[in-house]
């Protein structure tokens, strides 16, 4: 695929085109004048256009295109020394370059995503500058000057004497305020964005609160930028309304000083294809989303408990945050091989297995399994910060690593028990208890990873409706095993706390016990998932058996091959053992709608949800989840009732499965034709 045809413009990046042959030629021919105009009003207008186009280029870069064809298509950035006589342009170029450096550094350091490959490519681009650390002071000085110019023009407008004589920004008094405001919000956005990036990289999350404030300021400056559109367009050319929506500047004008073809030879290894720079409107929307994603990342509660961190990451990923936000979140979580840069992973594990007293034990810290588990936990957190598609593949791949640990743990535990049966000392007891706790926690985490792997398949639209039955069946199996391990882990931690003499109410608080039942609320929620998965499996199986719908038939293979392919990684890791296609067929072969109604899976869920509302009263996310589950079970119960009443093999019924209420639990939609 790397072969190219010379003189084919789609493939031949070295082909002589109609444009300039070099940056120097472009400059000589006036492509990037400094100043942009001898008329100061036009100069300011054009400067704003350059800033706006750079914002659009930056958004295009973030969305997956090369830096060379986007931000560094700007001749002013390629030859920054030329702009030193123009403080406004110079300061903006410097802050742009510094921001690009900061973002590339963060994404490079995070280093677990494939999408960074194009993102961080910067060969031959003048990204390093001598005095980048002074970019903020230069920007602040320019901002201060323009602020004074704004105050002066407002004073003049109200016929007051200006407090100091700074000279006006440009020559048309009626436009002074509009241009000052338009420039200030653009400069301030850049300043706050850069500050936010610097704060986020501070050690051990020390800059989080300040970063949040800067992100909030970015959002308000973006709002001001959007408001400046009307003023800037009223001074623009008379372009038609339809066309202006796709322009890369607020004014709708073409910016001076950009030429993507000048860098065509720097876009190796692939020949550069013509790319579309996103419109300025889309760029604003992109940065608004990025700021919201960063705000969500900065809401990281610095929770020491692993299960809460994992839950936070699952919640964070729901809005499909962009690479820049995900990379920064990962760097907040993992610094210098430690959680938040301060907790070693053996401490994280000891808290997860509810044996915090073991943290300082050197033998525990140096134990090869603990070290290995620590690496796996760190790797898991990094994977959960990647995009969903990549994440699912990696989660599938690491299942085997987690599964192997469990077997080794088991062997170690049994070997100790067997050899030392008659010489049980206090230390040996602790060792055996530790092995037991570690084993059950590692198994629980393995099943949690397996459940994420399967659930992400729904989000990524990897399953066809004909495959839902086998997927929900496998999910049911995984949830049952996950629940078992979770309950075991909780039992161990409760036993341990009892031995320490903890009071009953403290025990309940520690384990998240649900008051009426004395069972953990998390376990009860998981029980809902078990019932819903089982209910959906049986409903789909019944429809398959009675209506012959959702049947897989193809000329080249059968349902068995699809099963093998979908669950290959789980089977390879023995998660769980003894699960097979034949077991799936045995479980579903004779199911009828009447069986499904008799077992009342969905009614059980409703009962649990009613009791759980109190426990989750202060947790809006979990309350929302309960509401969604309730919608799913209600609608499926109604659908089952209709199918039973009309008759499952009535040809007038059209039955489909859709996801209007929950991202992975489907609802049967029944229509009569």
């Amino acid at each position, binding site marked *: 695929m790397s072969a190219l045809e010379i003189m084919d413009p789609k493939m031949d990046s070295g082909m002589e085109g109609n444009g300039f042959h070099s940056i120097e030629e472009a400059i000589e021919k006036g492509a990037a004048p400094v100043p942009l105009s001898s008329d100061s009003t036009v100069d300011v207008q054009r400067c704003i256009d350059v800033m706006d186009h750079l914002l659009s280029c930056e958004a295009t870069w973030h969305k997956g295109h090369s830096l060379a064809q986007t931000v560094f298509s700007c001749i002013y950035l390629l030859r920054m020394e030329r702009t030193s006589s123009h403080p406004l342009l110079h300061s903006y170029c410097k802050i742009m370059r510094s921001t690009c450096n900061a973002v590339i550094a963060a994404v490079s350091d995070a280093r677990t995503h494939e999408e960074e490959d194009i993102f961080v490519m910067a060969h031959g681009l003048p990204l390093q500058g001598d005095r980048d650390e002074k970019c903020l002071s230069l920007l602040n000085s320019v901002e201060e000057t323009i602020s004074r110019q704004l105050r002066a023009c407002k004073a003049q407008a109200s016929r007051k004497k200006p407090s100091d004589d700074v000279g006006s920004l440009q020559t048309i008094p009626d436009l002074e305020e509009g241009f000052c405001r338009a420039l200030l919000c653009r400069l301030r956005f850049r300043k706050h964005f850069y500050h936010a990036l610097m704060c986020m990289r501070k050690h051990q999350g020390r800059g989080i609160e300040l970063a949040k404030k800067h992100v909030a300021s970015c959002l308000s400056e973006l709002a001001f930028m959007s408001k400046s559109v009307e003023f800037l367009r009223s001074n623009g050319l008379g372009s038609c309304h339809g066309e202006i929506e796709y322009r890369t500047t607020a004014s709708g004008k073409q910016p001076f000083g950009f030429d993507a073809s000048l860098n065509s030879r720097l876009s190796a290894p692939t020949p550069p294809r013509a790319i579309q720079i996103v419109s300025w409107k889309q760029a604003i929307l992109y940065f608004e989303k990025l700021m919201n994603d960063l705000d969500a990342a900065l809401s990281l509660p610095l929770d020491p408990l692993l299960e809460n961190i994992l839950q936070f990451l699952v919640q964070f990923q729901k809005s499909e945050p962009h690479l820049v936000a995900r990379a920064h979140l990962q760097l907040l979580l993992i610094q210098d091989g430690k959680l938040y840069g301060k907790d070693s992973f053996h401490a994280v594990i000891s808290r997860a297995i509810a044996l915090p007293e073991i943290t300082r034990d050197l033998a525990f810290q140096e134990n090869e399994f603990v070290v290995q588990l620590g690496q796996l936990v760190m790797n898991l957190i990094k994977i959960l910060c990647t995009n969903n598609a990549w994440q699912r593949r990696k989660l599938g791949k690491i299942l085997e690593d987690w599964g192997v640990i469990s077997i080794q743990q088991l062997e170690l535990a049994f070997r100790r028990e067997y050899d030392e049966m008659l010489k049980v000392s206090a230390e040996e007891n602790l060792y055996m208890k530790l092995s037991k706790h570690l084993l059950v926690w590692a198994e629980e985490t393995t099943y949690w990873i397996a459940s994420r792997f399967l659930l992400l398949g729904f989000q990524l*639209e990897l399953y066809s409706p004909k495959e839902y039955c086998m997927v929900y069946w496998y999910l049911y199996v995984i949830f049952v095993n996950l629940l078992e391990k979770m309950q075991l882990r909780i039992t161990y931690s409760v036993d341990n706390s009892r031995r320490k003499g903890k009071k009953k109410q403290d025990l309940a608080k520690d384990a998240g016990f649900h008051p009426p039942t004395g069972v953990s609320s998390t376990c009860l929620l998981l029980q809902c998932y078990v019932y819903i998965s089982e209910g959906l499996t049986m409903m789909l199986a019944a429809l398959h058996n009675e209506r012959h719908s959702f049947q897989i038939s*193809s000329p080249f293979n059968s349902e068995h091959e*699809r099963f093998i392919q979908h669950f290959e990684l789980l089977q390879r890791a023995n998660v769980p053992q003894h699960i097979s296609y034949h077991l799936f067929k045995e479980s579903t072969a004779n199911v009828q709608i009447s069986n499904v109604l008799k077992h009342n899976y969905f009614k059980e869920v409703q009962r649990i949800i009613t009791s759980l509302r109190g426990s989750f009263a202060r947790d809006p996310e979990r309350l929302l989840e309960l509401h969604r589950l309730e919608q799913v079970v209600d609608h499926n119960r109604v659908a089952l009732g209709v199918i039973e009443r009309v008759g499952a093999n009535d040809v007038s019924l059209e039955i489909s499965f859709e996801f209007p209420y929950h991202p992975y639990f489907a609802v049967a939609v029944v229509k009569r034709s």
Partner: protein
Amino acid sequence: MEDAAPSEPFPETELQFSPWEVEYVSYGGEHHLPLIMNLVDKELSEPYSIFTYRYFVYLWPNLTFLAFHEGKCVGTVVCKMGEHRNTFRGYIAMLVVVKPCRGKGIATELVARAIRVMMESGCEEVTLEAEVTNKGALALYGRLGFIRAKRLFRYYLNGVDAFRLKLLFPGAKSPFHIP
């Protein structure tokens, strides 16, 4: 790679004909190459050089098929096969049917013929990529037994994701026991 359909020199309107009026032939030589290139070049944004086409049709001529209707080439499929990480695998590189002739099972027949040759040649599986928005292709391959094995984030230059589609033949060897 991609599935597409060019639009000239055929009329815009759908052509009416029966399936048996379409003749399917295996790649027969250099005289077929310009027909294939013409069909693919017209529709795909991805530019393929002459070397790319020759790579496929010279090494695997038995995996390229053309569909003719009234003497005109209306569709083609171009594939390859080989060892990939200890698996003998077929790969569907390009599939094209002209717009007026779509919806008549021509693409399905072209792909099915190629898959049959792959199966008879000992392939264990067949794979390809398709845009997540290409509902027609996804339905076609789904009916033939392909699953969506992976989603590839921003696989295409326009930022669209792709699915890696895979079809596993029965009885394929695997490194672990699958009951």
